[in-house]
């Protein structure tokens, strides 16, 4: 099947009842105009962010301005991709590029002068270490596993070194390029699988509806860089069996080997998913007697697995300890769920609008996937990769079950969506293109509108329920126990003071809001299980047993409820606070024996524990 020769392309059959071709070749909405609309959307969002910074972060009109800007970005692109007008391959690529770049710039505008998100600060710290010491595998107290996967920090420190750019600017370039590269590779893969660039464009649009597309998959975090290598390996696996010339085979094999190696040293989970994906493809090809593809996929799967295992054993032995609690917690919750036990997701604190969007999106996806499977059965059942995508897309239902029924399930669901949406997006696109095609053929325009509305609902669900969360949708003044809005000058100056005055790596107690600042700018070792220190009326000796050296006390914990619902990284009362912490619980440190009050900046006070 050749590209753009898809049976699902509705343009070939747009002949009216009297046998005349309808004039549908030229769109009244050129791609260049859509690019201007998306740029305007970014500008409107930037204006909303500025309004938030100038004191309107909680105002309804600033919030609406943000969503207006997002509509300028998303709506024209969705309309054009799903519209009945002709679309060239170049236009499709331009549309998905405009979407990806515009949403990335929205993130840049949120924190335009420096990283503020916790995961980004973790990798910023790692890059600073490489630049300062020239060494890999140095200690990172906030994310101890990240130095064992130094790919992102290597590229960023290389770029910052040779260009003289700041780590922030170099990091934005690396993350942005990696994100766009992943989208392009996804597009090429979808185009190859479906034989249609229209389906491929719609599939990328569907992929962009996942809650992490505009956040964790494009931020300065190690997964962002590993994803394009994951995609390139799949592309090489797709290309290898079809090549007859040995020269080209060597080319794609080299790409595959390098991409596998880069994936393995950049991000743990992505490398495991890559190996598993290749094994599944190999198995499917084997069952469908695609011997050559099965063989190539098996070889690359084996190579991925050996490389990932080798790295795990010899270079990153801490990976298992890092992933095990997360995996064990999820398994326990699932076990309890299937046993009819007590595990359940806590009631959502999200606004009603977000919950409605989430429920609507689940409903739409749940309907679209079976329609897509039907299309796979009708048109692609001899295409093993599409069949694999159809089978693996069932995992979307599992993820939804986890999201709504398991404690901490939303985080797992969010993280998994990066991968589960790859097959699900393709199947959704097959369904959507079929539905729009039916609407065009039968001249039932009223059917096309709900399809478009459904896709837009998916898009806005991804944005509304992604990151930043509703309580930090707009940047603004300091928030107690928040995320980006808990990173301000007073916190940064205090954290830097700890590094210069106390040295690196001291064990600190701190709240959630200051955790990332202290670990990154301060290069300290903040502990997570410290809530008891702040929530009890007396100072206990348990702090000594934890090996704590310093306690960071933000007086604002007694003035506001936590924006995130929890004051501490590991907070047993998360979501249960009805009033701020008692002031006396924070003041007790002043009267406690064995504590020295060594730093005071008004809101932030630091105490030193006497050495045992």
């Amino acid at each position, binding site marked *: 099947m050749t590209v753009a020769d898809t049976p699902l392309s509705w343009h070939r059959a747009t002949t009216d009842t009297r046998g005349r071709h309808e004039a549908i070749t030229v769109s009244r909405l*050129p791609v*260049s105009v859509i*690019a*201007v609309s998306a*740029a*305007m959307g*970014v*500008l409107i969002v*930037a204006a909303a*962010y*500025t309004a938030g*910074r100038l*004191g309107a972060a909680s105002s309804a009109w600033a919030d609406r301005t943000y969503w207006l800007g997002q509509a300028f970005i998303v709506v024209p692109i969705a309309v054009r991709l799903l519209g009945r007008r002709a679309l060239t391959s*170049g236009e499709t690529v331009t549309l998905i590029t405009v979407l990806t770049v*515009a949403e990335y*710039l929205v993130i*840049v*505008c949120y*924190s*335009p002068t420096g990283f503020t998100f916790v995961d980004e600060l973790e990798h910023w710290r790692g890059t600073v270490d*490489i*630049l300062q010491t*020239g*060494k890999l595998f140095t200690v990172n107290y906030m994310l101890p596993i990240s130095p064992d996967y*130094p790919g992102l920090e*290597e590229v960023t*420190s*290389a*770029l910052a*070194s*040779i*260009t*003289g*750019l700041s780590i922030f600017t170099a990091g934005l370039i690396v993350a942005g390029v990696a994100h766009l*590269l992943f989208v*392009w*590779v996804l*597009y090429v893969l979808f185009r190859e699988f479906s034989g249609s660039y229209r389906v491929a464009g719609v599939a990328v649009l569907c992929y962009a509806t996942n809650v992490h597309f505009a956040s964790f998959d494009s931020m300065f975090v190690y997964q962002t860089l590993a994803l*394009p290598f994951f995609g*390139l390996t799949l592309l090489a696996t797709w290309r290898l069996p079809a090549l007859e010339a040995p*020269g080209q085979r060597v*080319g794609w094999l080299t*790409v595959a080997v*390098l991409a596998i*190696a*880069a994936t393995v*040293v950049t991000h743990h989970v992505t490398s495991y998913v890559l190996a598993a994906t290749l094994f599944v493809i190999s198995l499917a090809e084997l069952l469908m007697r695609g011997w050559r593809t099965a063989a190539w996929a098996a070889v690359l799967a084996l190579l991925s697995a050996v490389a990932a295992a080798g790295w795990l054993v010899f270079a990153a032995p801490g990976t298992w300890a890092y992933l095990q609690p997360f995996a064990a917690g999820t398994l326990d919750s699932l076990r309890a769920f299937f046993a009819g036990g007590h595990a359940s997701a806590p009631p959502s604190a999200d606004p009603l609008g977000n919950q409605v969007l989430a429920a609507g999106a689940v409903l739409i996806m749940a309907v679209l996937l079976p329609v897509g499977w039907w299309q796979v059965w009708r048109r692609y059942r001899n295409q093993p990769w599409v069949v694999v995508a159809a089978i693996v897309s069932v995992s979307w239902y599992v993820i939804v079950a986890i999201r709504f029924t398991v404690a901490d399930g939303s985080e797992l669901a969010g993280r998994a969506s990066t991968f589960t949406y790859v097959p699900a997006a393709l199947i959704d696109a097959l369904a959507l293109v079929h539905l729009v095609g039916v609407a065009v053929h039968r001249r039932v325009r009223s059917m096309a509108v709900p399809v478009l509305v459904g896709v837009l609902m998916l898009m806005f669900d991804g944005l509304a329920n992604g990151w930043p969360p509703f309580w930090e949708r707009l*940047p603004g003044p300091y928030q107690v126990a928040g995320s980006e809005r808990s990173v301000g*000058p*007073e916190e940064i*100056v205090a954290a830097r003071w700890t590094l210069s005055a*106390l*040295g690196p790596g001291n064990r600190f107690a701190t709240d959630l809001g200051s955790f990332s600042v202290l670990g990154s700018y301060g290069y300290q070792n903040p502990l997570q299980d410290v809530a008891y220190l702040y929530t009890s009326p007396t100072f206990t000796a348990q702090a000594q047993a934890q090996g704590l050296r310093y306690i960071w006390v933000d007086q604002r914990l007694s003035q506001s409820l936590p924006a995130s619902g929890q004051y501490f990284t590991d907070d047993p009362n998360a979501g249960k606070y009805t009033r701020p912490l008692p002031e006396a619980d924070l003041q007790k440190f*002043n009267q406690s024996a064995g504590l*020295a*009050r*060594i*730093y*005071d*900046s008004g809101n932030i006070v630091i105490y030193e524990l006497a050495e045992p």
Partner: protein
Amino acid sequence: MKRQADLAITAAVAVLACAAAALGAPVAVTAVLGIALLVAPGYLLGQLLFGSRIADLERVAVVTGLALCVPILAGLLLYAFGLPLHRAAWLGLLAGATLIGDLALLLRRRGGPATPLSWHRAAGRLPVPHVVAFGAAVVIVVCAVGLARVGAAIQHYPGFTQLWLAHPNENADTADLGVGNHEGKTMRYRLVLKRNGRTAATWNLTLANGQTWQRSPAYSGGIAAYLYTLPDLAQPYRYVAINGNGAPGS
């Protein structure tokens, strides 16, 4: 000669990037050359592996992916051989990889099969109105990022003053005493150092915004420091205390 233009350009980028770094050229120059140098090995590797046998978007993706792979994997190798990953190492690595790639590609092309980069124009030249529209889009997003940066720069944060008294090295005879003004304006302070409840020293300080003041008083048990904002001497603005209850009023 036209066939080898890409090799000449990449070789020139490698040499110029190293020269710019050695001469301390402005960031605007090193940034452009550095980004080109990061891409060059990926481009050359792509040429060596595929020539012009893959289509445009796929080629861009492969070249970009290879360009990102080079510093990751070669950086690991350098580190394994004991080389610290400083600027010289990265420049040497990327410039070396570029020049080796140039040489390999030159030999390959003289031998026959590999062809230089040629981008297919499937749709011909873009009409002027569309070029103008895309240009306008670029200008608008530049303005958007500029607006966001201005917004971040003018965001108002409450001012604050730091006071510290630390003794991190238990063998040291002195402590670190300091004041930092981040109030957004020049401030006048009085700093009182007490030992066992008795005033041991007093300083009147005038600090501009962003200015710090530091001393190293002798360390002994029961020292505390109280900072007042003049002319208010009734309540300390900040206080710190080591080895003793230094709370005001105690």
